[in-house]
């Protein structure tokens, strides 16, 4: 078994695709539709055959309640890793993204938090070098 894809609920798939590709620089990987279903994934441009992130339409009331609750608790719905959190913070902020936390040192890493415009908080993480 492999970890090939992980899923994130979004409240608008077109807006999510714009955010994750144009603001965070991921690359669209798979996009197809079957009736009202749309399977949409992105992958890191630095690792195009790596783990995919599925941007799943949140049309499920239970999932919506969960998404809103963890958003209100400032919990990230997903976490991405970078080798240059300060550089990425400036770059992504320059593209209009709204950060709720600038790069901040925590135990073992530096983290920052931003809104994905689709109902989620995203955490950027740079591991500390010891």
């Amino acid at each position, binding site marked *: 078994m492999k970890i090939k894809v992980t899923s994130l609920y979004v409240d608008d798939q077109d807006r999510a695709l714009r955010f994750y590709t144009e603001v965070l620089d991921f690359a669209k*990987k798979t996009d197809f539709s079957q*009736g009202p279903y749309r399977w949409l994934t992105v992958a890191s441009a630095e690792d195009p055959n790596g783990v995919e992130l599925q941007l799943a339409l949140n*049309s499920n009331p239970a999932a919506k309640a969960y998404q809103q609750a963890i958003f209100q608790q400032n919990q990230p719905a997903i976490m991405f890793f970078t080798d240059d959190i300060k550089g990425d913070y400036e770059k992504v902020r320059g593209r209009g993204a709204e950060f709720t936390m600038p790069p901040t040192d925590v135990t073992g890493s530096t983290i920052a938090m931003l809104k994905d415009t689709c109902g989620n908080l995203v955490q950027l993480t740079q591991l500390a070098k010891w």
Partner: protein
Amino acid sequence: MIQREEYTPRPAYGAQIRKDGEKWTLILVRELRHSPEKVWQALTDPAHLREWAPFDADGNLGTVGSTVKLTTVGAPTPLVSETTVTRADAPNVLEYKWGGFDMKWELEAWAGGTRLTLWTNIGHRFIAMGAAGWHICFDVLDHLLSGIPIGRMVGPAAIKFGGWQRLNAEYAKQFGIETPNWPPQVDQK
């Protein structure tokens, strides 16, 4: 009588698209050799829908105001959407939503059979895929009503058996849109 494996859809036909900003509507017209009453039953009765439609219904779609759960068949993760029938003038006009799509069916008596028109809005990138899928579904429906069912072909079955990829390319060409990249040409390893 044809076997499922022998089924080959005819080239793309009977389709139009109407563009209203970002909202595109697919309009598919089919002439079926079956009465409107018979076609109506196939469009509304869950036992009939299960034989040809791209979704399963947990109740009859033939009554205004009834709430029915529609399960998209073959979706990569389960998708159930609840719908309310907004119009059901048997055996002529049927309207409800499938997920975010408006579905309007019109049945007109025609030469001893039925001229069936479907209006459905689909994101413009996927409209050729939708036309190809409905093309195959309508062929399966026609065989079913003729008493020679070839079995539902939706999701992976359509892609495998139904000439779906050819139809997808044909409708994309007719509509003047790019052929969607599906099945993906990228390395899936």
